[in-house]
């Protein structure tokens, strides 16, 4: 029979279950960056604001759920460049403040390598992409790392005069590193 005082206990059990694989991101150690070429020169920038929800268990990768949100207004390279890239012609952080990746399927590739299929949405354009990543863990937590390449023009990033790919290349590498605490259930 259910008693009112059981509710907190039940909630605790449920939340412990929910936390079984969903891991807490350590934002101080995690990074989301992008790299491109400008006149043949490799340049790297960072996104200072992002949030990640990673529900991943290496024993059951296909059950994983990954959702990443990146604040487009947090692009950071150099003050003069930042204003332009956050602006209307590039990421348009005012009208599209978030870029989002939502996984639909995760599969193991062997060893510490995995692959997440999912939808990437930037600036009103969504597309199915494949993101390869590695997962390493110890008792302290996990590290997820990966790099994938997008076409900036496909997402209308760099419109008008910036469409010229001789100046800024079309290919942009997105690099990420998420460090998490160990899931509660795995802690000993």
């Amino acid at each position, binding site marked *: 029979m259910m008693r009112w005082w059981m509710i907190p206990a039940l909630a605790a059990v449920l939340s412990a279950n929910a936390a079984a694989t969903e891991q807490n991101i350590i934002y101080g150690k995690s990074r989301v960056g992008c790299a491109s070429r*400008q*006149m*043949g*020169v490799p*340049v790297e920038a960072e996104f200072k604001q992002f949030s990640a929800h990673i529900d991943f268990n290496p024993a059951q990768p296909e059950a994983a759920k990954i959702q990443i949100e990146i604040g487009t207004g947090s692009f950071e390279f*150099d003050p003069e460049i930042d204003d332009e890239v956050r602006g209307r012609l590039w990421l348009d952080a005012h009208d599209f403040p978030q870029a989002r990746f939502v996984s639909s399927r995760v599969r193991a590739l062997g060893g510490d390598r995995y692959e997440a299929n999912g939808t990437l949405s930037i600036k009103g354009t969504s597309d199915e992409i494949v993101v390869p990543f590695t997962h390493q863990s110890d008792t302290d937590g996990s590290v997820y790392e990966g790099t994938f390449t997008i076409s900036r023009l496909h997402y209308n990033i760099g419109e008008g*005069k910036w469409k010229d790919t001789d*100046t800024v290349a079309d290919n942009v590498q997105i690099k990420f590193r998420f460090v998490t605490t160990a899931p509660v259930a795995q802690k000993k």
Partner: protein
Amino acid sequence: MVTSRTASYTKTAIALHWLIFALIACGFTLGHYMVDLPLSPLKLKYFSWHKWLGVTVFMFAVARIIWRLTHPVPPFPAGMPAWQKATAGASHIMLYILIIMIPLSGWLYSSAAGVPTVYLGLIPLPDLLGKDKPLSRFLEEVHEILNDGLAVMVAIHVAAALKHHFIDRDGVLRRMLPFLKSREPS
């Protein structure tokens, strides 16, 4: 003796002098013009071209210093006062130092700003400095101040050359400009 007074620089030294002058004039003008432009693809191109000019100046300047150290330069005119000889020598050394330091400061500034230099878009130069914003702002200042210094030194250099040619009429300018009409008293 007339020959020692009018002996010219070697053809190589003359060619390097004027080539480096032309490259610096282009790089200096482009540098001043591009920095105040609003951000555009063209501005990014100008920055790259400016850096390529700087790398080219640096390479020719190194070649020129090696040439200078291994080939004697014509002596100063016999009647030139000692203080003028000392000043001329010092200002030439100063010019060489600036011609070397300016491309170096630009390269380091670029590295600290997080933009490596890729010569002609083909040959990546190493980055001696990692990305560091305060350092990049400091090196930007250094690059600018050195350029102001070069502008002053070039003005003095040109004024001295013209004084030698039109007032002293001692053939000093013709050593670097052999096609110039002589104004020396015969």
